[in-house]
């Protein structure tokens, strides 16, 4: 009883040890793939000051469907109407999982430190090629691989400009969407340096913003549709000036000699001529006429927004386009919805210095106006009679796949979903998956057996064999002679001693058969026929 109890404890202990090791192994794998971060930001589905819920809510209020993409941009390949879809990527904070895949040359590669795998970049490029619109907002993240596909590079170094917001700090920089940089007059932007968005204003002759075409039209607010933010006193008052506020930005470069996926690349916004870039990241700016170890940093004019279009007009009906902005936080709630952020009576995004001390308030900016105009241009219906309204299938997709989640389950879910999309979207993975499915089917076919039907089998088959080696021994002449002599002895009731002492002549007379007598007395070789004849004779001997 005690032994049985001990055995039970040992079994439970063994089970516990086994499952503990399994859990440790599983956790060690998960830790490698799942990054639980406390800095959950730039999500369109969270409403902290550094998330983008206000932007998403505005889009929803315009009657446009919003979706999140939590697994992989590979899913963009499944979008049925790319023309009426806008893909927004704000802050690529996490690298892709390093999984093997085919590269553009057909070789197997393992993506690493690229943010997006070659297949994912291909999916984004194909989406834009198919007429989709993409907006990439990033600074020091992993969006570089996407930008490179269009001949653009994120420098990844912090940029400082003289056009910064003095009541905040030098990290907050003004960006005017116009051909020439705007300048400062004291603590605010000099109004004389403000110009208009070159294309949207219609100054370039083509590609004017659709809301500009409705400029001056009287209509109720409900009919303003995607241009509602330009509606004022019963009519559309379109204005193509955009002073956008950025925070902690980097710069964009056009890669020389590289032709991107779209032919028409244009720079929409630049810094002032006195902008500097902290290349060595020491927080200090050391610039000179040439870049060396003493003056490693850069100064001059840098690009802040780059647009790549399929056609010069950038008309969404004629092809896709992609816009890169050198700041991942351009559309965060604090800047985008600065009124809600600053409102001391009803702060929408928690307390801050502006709410409590009336300091560090976010200044008025055109980020919301620009973002909604971007959406309006991309998703406004081009059908006659639907001016200003979103198209039927209008949809905005927020890429949440590269935002770390602050919950284990959410991040695990994203990882699993990513793997699922990887295995159903990536060529090599699909091959592996097909192979896996084939093996699984084969395994089921070969290994899985239904329980046999019960059937009683009556079986009493049994054979008890003797020693077959003795058969040859009993066919030998000497053995036959021995058996015959035993028979002679038994038949005549003689003991062994008497029989051995018997003279040969007497034995011959006892046998009384010349053939058998000769067989008994004269050992000689016998053929098989002769042996058979002798055995027959022995068998018959003594019967009479």
């Amino acid at each position, binding site marked *: 009883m005690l032994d049985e109890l001990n055995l039970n404890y040992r079994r439970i202990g063994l089970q516990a040890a086994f499952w503990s090791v399994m859990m440790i192994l599983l956790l060690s794998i998960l830790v490698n793939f799942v990054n639980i971060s406390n800095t959950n930001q730039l999500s369109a589905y969270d409403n902290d000051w550094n998330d983008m819920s206000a932007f998403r809510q505005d889009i929803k209020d315009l009657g446009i469907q919003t979706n999140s993409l939590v697994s992989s941009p590979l899913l963009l390949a499944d979008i049925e109407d790319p023309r009426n879809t806008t893909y927004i990527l704000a802050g690529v904070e996490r690298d892709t999982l390093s999984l093997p895949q085919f590269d553009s040359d057909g070789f197997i590669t393992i993506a690493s430190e690229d943010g997006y795998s070659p297949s994912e970049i291909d999916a984004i490029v194909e989406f834009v090629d198919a007429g989709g619109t993409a907006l990439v907002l990033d600074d020091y993240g992993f969006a570089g691989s996407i930008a490179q596909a269009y001949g653009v590079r994120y420098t990844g170094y912090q940029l400082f400009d003289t056009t910064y917001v003095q009541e905040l700090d030098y990290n907050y920089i003004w960006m005017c969407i116009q051909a020439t940089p705007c300048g400062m007059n004291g603590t605010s932007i000099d109004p004389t340096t403000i110009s208009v968005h070159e294309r949207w204003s219609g100054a370039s002759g083509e590609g004017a913003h659709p809301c500009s075409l409705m400029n001056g039209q009287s209509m109720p607010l409900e009919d303003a549709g995607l241009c509602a933010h330009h509606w004022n006193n019963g009519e559309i008052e379109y204005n193509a000036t955009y002073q956008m506020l950025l925070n902690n930005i980097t710069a964009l470069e056009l890669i020389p000699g590289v032709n991107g996926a779209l032919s028409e690349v244009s720079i929409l916004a630049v810094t002032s001529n006195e902008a500097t870039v902290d290349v060595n990241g020491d927080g200090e700016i050391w610039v000179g006429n040439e870049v060396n170890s003493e003056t490693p940093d850069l100064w001059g004019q840098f690009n802040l927004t780059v647009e790549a279009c399929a056609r010069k007009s950038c008309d969404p009906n004629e092809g896709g386009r992609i816009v890169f902005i050198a700041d991942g936080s351009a559309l965060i709630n604090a800047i985008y919805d600065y009124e809600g952020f600053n409102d001391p009576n009803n702060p929408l995004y928690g307390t801050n210095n502006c709410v409590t001390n009336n300091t560090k308030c976010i200044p008025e900016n055109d980020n919301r106006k620009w973002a909604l105009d971007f959406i309006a241009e991309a998703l406004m219906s081009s059908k006659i009679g639907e001016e200003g309204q979103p198209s039927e299938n209008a949809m905005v997709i927020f890429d949440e796949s590269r935002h770390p989640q602050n919950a284990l389950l959410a991040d695990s879910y994203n990882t699993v979903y990513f793997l699922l999309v990887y295995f159903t979207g990536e060529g090599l993975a699909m091959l592996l998956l097909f192979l896996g*499915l084939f093996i699984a*089917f084969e395994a089921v076919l070969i290994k899985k057996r239904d*329980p046999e039907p019960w059937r*009683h089998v009556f079986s*009493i088959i049994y054979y008890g064999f*003797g020693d077959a080696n003795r058969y040859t021994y009993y066919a030998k002449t000497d053995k036959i002679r021995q*058996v015959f002599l*035993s028979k002679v002895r038994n038949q005549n009731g003689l003991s062994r001693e008497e029989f051995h002492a018997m003279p040969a002549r007497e034995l011959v007379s006892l046998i009384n058969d010349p053939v058998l007598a000769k067989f008994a007395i004269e050992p000689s070789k016998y053929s098989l026929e002769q042996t058979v004849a002798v*055995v027959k004779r*022995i068998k018959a001997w003594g019967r009479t």
Partner: protein
Amino acid sequence: MWTRKASFTFTGGIALILIGMMIANLQMMILGLTFIAFIVVNSWISGHGDVEVQRTLSADNLYKGDDLYVELLVTNRSNRNTQLLEVYDNIPHEMKLRSGLNQMRLNLKPGESARIRYVLRCPLRGHFSIGPVSLRSRNTFNLGVEEMYVDHHSDIVIFPQIKEVEEAFLRSRTPKMYTGATTLRTPGQGSEFYSLREYVPGDPFKNINWKAFARTGDLMVNEKCRDAVTDLYILLDSRDIARIGTVLKNPLEMGTVSAASLAAFFLKRRDSVALAIFDDNLSYLPPDTGDKQYFKILSALAGVAPKGTMPLQAVTNSLSGRFSRGSPVFIISSCEGDGTVPAAVRDLVGRGHEVTVLSPSSIDFERLVSRIPRMSYEVLKLERQNRLTTLAGSGAMVIDWMPDMDLSQALMQVRGY
């Protein structure tokens, strides 16, 4: 446990979902999800094997070749239906299903019972066990199977067959030998009344004559006349060499039949019968009479299996001191592979025992299963005849028992030697 069908459905469902995702085919994904949902829903509806089983046998002891009637009562003691439940009564493969089936598919409601009846033929002697009862529950679409068993066994002993033995064949050369019980006018164990005597402490209560007690007021007991009986000793060779032949025809099988038949014959005549079985050990049942001894002998014979190489002389040396003087001894042995047989027989004859050697012809049994060259067979037969002649010369009655010969026929040969 999932069936093959369930595994295919599940794998197919997963494959359809994944391939549907690959080629962006919603219908295919929905079909795959339907497969998976079908499996999941089915796993909720499962049967159970929480049943009570009771087996009734027509007899606990049978003779070889008899029929055994089995009835299995299955009752659902739980509060829910069993669903599709297969019940299978495990029976030894040495038993033949003569009629009925030892399995049934049931769907029992709570408290409901079902009976499974079948008949078994038992062609082999031995100790057997019927059971356990295997249960297999399946769900409605045969997607899941669960197997379990009810540990319910019924033990059964199959005795060797009893053949008719004619008295004439067993007549001894010694007068009054093999004549059965004769009454002696002396008190002792017996069947006929001898006298009344006063009760002595230790007398069994069943011997008290209650009428005499009522009449006299003293406790009186009946005394019986002692029956004089013949003590018969049967020595059965169960060495490994006795296995040669087929399952139904081999020296040991024929030996057990002959031992059981001789024991039955003599016990019926109220003689005492002793049985010694030698293989790698010697097991000995001392002489006794009655049904109890008969049962003991049959039980011992039922469990005999060929093994070991104990020589006959070791047996006779060990037991001859216990043999009653002049009592008959039956040696049932093929006399193969044991050089001590002539000496042992000579010793028994010398002690005044009436020795009969009943010798199944092992070479002829071997011929049933092996292709023995003709000449070797003839020489082997000659050697065997020499051996039997030697035994006959020692004063024993020797019977050469061929495989196709009845026991009665074989016993007739006593005169031949």
